């Protein structure tokens, strides 16, 4: 019961910070607010008994902040406010409509789930209870990651590889001939 209250408080703070990040005039403060949301997520992971994810999220959030500030460093920090045009009105209407449609599907999806904290293990019963004898790893997350579902992780490595190649290609200033 305590966990739910703590999680609700952190989530309300995260929602407020998200609104601050979207409506901030200064881009740097928007970036900092986004960092605060990420660190709130770390607290949530710790409360939800996921230490692996907490470690990954705290380092990944820090690196994202460093890269974002590096991008902003040489450019304008203040967002220019322009008068509303017709395209903006279309965007606001689209946001409202999409929200209503997604609310319908969310209510549909949430009715199937069990209430918070009463999850039953179905498929992952083997992953949780047989992991020590089948893989020998005492960290079950790593057992699933590299034994039961290794192909997913392989695809993730491929995505990282593609990203690095893409960044190198985008940031090249001179062609090879010059």
């Amino acid at each position, binding site marked *: 019961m305590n*966990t739910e209250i703590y999680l609700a408080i952190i989530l309300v703070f995260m929602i407020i910070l*998200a609104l601050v990040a979207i409506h901030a005039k200064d*881009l740097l403060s928007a*970036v900092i607010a986004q960092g605060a949301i990420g660190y709130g*997520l770390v607290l949530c992971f710790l409360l939800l008994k996921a230490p692996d994810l907490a470690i990954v999220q705290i380092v990944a959030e820090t690196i994202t902040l460093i890269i*974002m500030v590096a991008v902003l460093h040489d450019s304008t920090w203040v967002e220019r406010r*322009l008068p509303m045009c017709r395209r903006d009105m279309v*965007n606001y209407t689209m946001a409202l409509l999409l929200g209503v449609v997604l609310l319908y599907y969310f209510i549909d999806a949430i009715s199937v789930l069990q*209430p918070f904290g009463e999850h039953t293990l179905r498929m992952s019963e083997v992953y949780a209870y047989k992991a020590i004898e089948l893989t020998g790893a005492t960290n079950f997350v790593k057992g699933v990651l590299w034994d039961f579902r290794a192909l*997913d992780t392989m695809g993730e490595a491929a995505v990282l590889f593609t990203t690095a190649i893409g960044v190198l290609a985008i940031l090249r200033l001179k062609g090879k001939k010059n």
Partner: protein
Amino acid sequence: MTLYILCFILFLVGLYGLLISRNIIKIVISLTIVEISIFLLLIMVGYISDGIAPVVFDAQILENQAVVDPLPQTMVLTAIVIALATNSMILTMAIRLYKKYGTFDVHEISKLKG
């Protein structure tokens, strides 16, 4: 149930930012907010009230003790790293756009037409 709805509100806030903002940096931030809400929802679905974290040194403990579901944790673990990579990709595109057009504003970029 309240927590799932709060997660969904966070998702809607991110979607709102994604649709109304004109600045590329703001768009990246909104995308990150949407990602964060989905990670949190997935982990909440797999939580068990009196379960322990899925790191156990002795198989004896497991006989009368529930464990938090390790499967959503694994999926989210890969998703976080992919989100980091895609974010940095979008940001590099943003600096190339800034060098060419001198602004982060999407509307102005589409007006200028290189």
